[in-house]
Structure formats: structure tokens, C-alpha cells
């Protein structure tokens, strides 16, 4: 994934400004930052769900919209209607929708979906309704759905949000296995998950800043207090020769 000078605004509100970063194949990148900093917007840009105002994004060497089939997207399971009448297998089969024109899924698609469920340790849950699953089980079904896409990139949006610690450990174990064979980009607030899965960290707070792991306590404080953005602005202005700005900061 390659972002060059990407900016995006919702109306007058600037969400991302001049964002540049690259994720090499096979890397596990954790995207962290304060709420409203632009993490989810960045994920949507990479998925091609929205277009940048400025700049260029390439995913797997193509436009994000054209590269969608190569991305397995895992949204937060808690945002779905828990009473929706659907089984775990039918949810995972959605990962094969681009192989379906009309009618029913082929035998091959069903086998792939079952294999994906097996991969996340949910093979016995295929016929279980979504409403009967716990928060952690639902999240693992969402990961299975992404795997059923046969992705080169796995993009997860806060995978451990609203699940308890014991379930989180299982999920981390699953993701640790997956990162060995695909590129993983994960939006998260969970620093345990960051240290267990990530190779590197991208702090997003309107602009971006890359960090290597492990994160120090001071860095974490800076990221979530917003100081990082100020420092980045100051550094940029300093490089541009605007020394008066530093004095104000």
C-alpha cells in the first residue's frame, strides 16, 4: 500500500492532511491515534469507499477500488443488528460474493467458507445463528469472512473492541498466525494487540507519523495527547524555514 500526499475533508473539516506512507508486502502495521484523528477515514480511503481530495493511493499496485478483491476487510462485529436472522456460514459466504452471479453459492465457495471458519477455530459454529454467538465469536466470524475473500491484505477495524480479555487472547493468537502469510493493517486502540501483532505503528492524528516497536510510555502519551501533531507541524514548518512558528509552539 502506498499513500502519497493524501488529504481528505468532510466539508470544511480537514480529517487527513498531506499523508504519506508505504506498507511493504508482508508487514503488519497497526494504525493508532486519538478518536477523530482520521484512522477510520484512512481505512475507507484504502478500501476505495471514499476518494481523496488530493494525493494518490495505490493498493497492490492498483487504484484502491480496483484492488478491493485483494483485501479482506474486518469491520467491528458490534455494529451489526444482533437479531439479524443469519448463520455464521452465511456471513462467511459473503466473502465469496464476487464469485456469485445469481442463485446459490457453488460447492467450491461453500468449502472455502467452511475452511475459513476452521482457520479461526469456528468450524463447529457454521450453522449457529449470529444472534447466538458471543462478541468474540462474532468477531472471529468476521475474520473468517475476510479470509474467505482469499486476501493478500487483511484490514481490521478495531478487532478487539467490546470483547473480553480471554476472547481477545484467542483473537490475537489467530491474527498472529495470519500475519505470517499476508499483509496486515489494523486500526486499533488496543496496545496489547499492537505489541503482539504489529511490526510497526502508524500514528494518525490528521497527519501521520511512523513509530517502531516497542512504543515507549512517553510516545504513547504524546500520541494520545495530540502533542505528536504539534511536533510534526513544527518540524515541517522548521524544514520550510518558518522559524518563527517554533517560537509559538
Amino acid at each position: 500500500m502506498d499513500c502519497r500526499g493524501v488529504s481528505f475533508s468532510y466539508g470544511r473539516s480537514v480529517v487527513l492532511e498531506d499523508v504519506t506512507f508505504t506498507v511493504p508486502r508482508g508487514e503488519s502495521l497497526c494504525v493508532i491515534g486519538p478518536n477523530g484523528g482520521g484512522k477510520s477515514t484512512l481505512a475507507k480511503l484504502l478500501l476505495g469507499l471514499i476518494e481523496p481530495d488530493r494525493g494518490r493511493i495505490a493498493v497492490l499496485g492498483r487504484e484502491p477500488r480496483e484492488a478491493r478483491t485483494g483485501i479482506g476487510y474486518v469491520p467491528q462485529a458490534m455494529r451489526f443488528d444482533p437479531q439479524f436472522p443469519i448463520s455464521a456460514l452465511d456471513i462467511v459466504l459473503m466473502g465469496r460474493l464476487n464469485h456469485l452471479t445469481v442463485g446459490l453459492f457453488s460447492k467450491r465457495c461453500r468449502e472455502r467458507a467452511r475452511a475459513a471458519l476452521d482457520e479461526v477455530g469456528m468450524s463447529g459454529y457454521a450453522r449457529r445463528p449470529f444472534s447466538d454467538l458471543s462478541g468474540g465469536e462474532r468477531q472471529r466470524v468476521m475474520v473468517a469472512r475476510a479470509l474467505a475473500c482469499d486476501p493478500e491484505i487483511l484490514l481490521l477495524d478495531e478487532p478487539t473492541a467490546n470483547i473480553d480479555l480471554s476472547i481477545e487472547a484467542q483473537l490475537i493468537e489467530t491474527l498472529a498466525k495470519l500475519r505470517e502469510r499476508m499483509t496486515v493493517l489494523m486500526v486499533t486502540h488496543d496496545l496489547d494487540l499492537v505489541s503482539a501483532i504489529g511490526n510497526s505503528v502508524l500514528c494518525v492524528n490528521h497527519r501521520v507519523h511512523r513509530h517502531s516497536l516497542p512504543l515507549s510510555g512517553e510516545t504513547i502519551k504524546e500520541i494520545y495527547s495530540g502533542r505528536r501533531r504539534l511536533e510534526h507541524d513544527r518540524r515541517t514548518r522548521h524544514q520550510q524555514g518558518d522559524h518563527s512558528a517554533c517560537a509559538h509552539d
Partner: protein
Amino acid sequence: MTDFFADFLDAVAEVPLIRYALLSGIVSSLTFGVVGSLVVTRQIAYVASAIAHSILGGIGAAVYCSRVYDLPWLTPMLGAIVAGLVSVAVIGWVTLRFKEREDTIIGAIWALGMAAGLLFLHYAPGKAVNMESFIFGNILLTSRSDVVATLVLGVLVFVLVGLFYHKLVAVSFDEEFARLRGVSSKAYYFLLLGLTAMSVVLLVRIAGLILAQALLVLPAATASRFSRSLWVVMVLAVALTAVCNTAGLAVSYEYDIPTGPFIVFLAVGCYALSFLFRRNRA
């Protein structure tokens, strides 16, 4: 009890009016159950109601124009079809474009449809139009051609939903993910709204606006409390609608009760009873 059923079966055998009413009730269950299940799981019951009410505007405009401009081919049914399609386009566009204000705008379209219908009918020259027949319908006035038209609609709905079942489910469950897998969520949303509008238009003739809305939503809502997959919800909703229609017709025949309102009463009763039973875990 045996006499009750014997009396009703005799009436079905001997009186064409009752026979067609029973047939249309059973045949329309297919449309109500299948489309209603999609409406309930997609949580667009209020959108379906807005479409149903806007149809009244089309009926009123057709009656007014046909009388004032002497256009005998402009039937209330044609007006309802045009109004249904226009409201699908407007409501679909509003719900996709103005998400944050959609309930207010849909409420306005709903009220505008009814108000326009009432005004057109008030100023239409000639014999006063019986509004009650459009609002509550009269299943006992169903003709053979109504039964055939309802059957054709039911088969069309069945085929379309069968062909696009998985995509309709995906778009209803997670529109964003469906879009990422190449499914045009907008196209399937409009397909669902279109099916809803056509179902309401055709069923208003036999069931009226209120009954059509009630039968579209209540049996499917009742079925969804006990089912684990959408196709099972559809099957249960079709069966429940058929039972409500048949029982409502039988009781109203035996005890001389208005049929439409009594069917609504049964559908509401089933939905209320469903709360006495355990539902799926949230």
C-alpha cells in the same frame, strides 16, 4: 367448532365472492411474506409505509385527471403504479443521500402523498369517491383477475428473490462489505423498494393501505423473532400471513365482522403473543 368450519367451507364452495377472497388471501401471502421479511430485516418498515401512503396521491391524481380531462384509460391502479415508482425514486434517493435527515424527509413525503390524494379526490368532479375502500380495502370485492394478478406478482417476487437472495441478504446485513465484494448496494436497495411498492400497489386493491402495511410487516416481524435464517423467516411469514387471512375471513364471515380490520387485529395479536415466548439471544 366443526359447524364453524363446515359453514365456512360450504360458503367457499358455493359463493364465488368468498372463494376469490380466500384465494387472494392465500396467494397474496407469498408476496407479503417474502417482501415483508426483507423489509423487516432491512429495518425499512417506515419506508414501506411512506411508499404505501404516497400511493394515495397517485390514486387521487388519476381519479381527478381522468374525470376533468376525460381520460378513461387513466385508472386509479395506473395512478397508484406511477406514484409508487415515483415515491421509490424519491425516497430511495433521499435515504441514500440525506441519511441524517431521512426520517423527517420521508415523513414529509408520506404526509404529502396523503394530502395530495385527499385534495385531488375532494375536487374531482362527479360521484364522490369512497376513500375507505382505498384505506381499508375490501377483500370481499376481489375478482378472478385480481387473484391472477396477485399470483403473477407472487411468482415474480419469488423468482427475483430466489435469483438474488444472497445479494439481498448481504446488502441488508452489511451494505459496506457487499459493496467491497462488487455488489451494487444501491441497485439492490432500489430493487427492494420497487418490490415493496409493487406489492403495496397490487395489494391495496384487495387489502387497502392499512392492511397492506400491516400484513407486510407484522407476520414477518413475528416470524423473525423465532427464526435463525432469512429464508426460514420468509417461509414462516408466508404461512402466518395465510393463516391470518384465512382465519380472519372465516371469522368475519361467520360473525359478520369487517374482514380487513379483523385480519389486522389477528396479525397484531400474533405479534403481541410472540413476546410471551423466548426469542433468540441478542
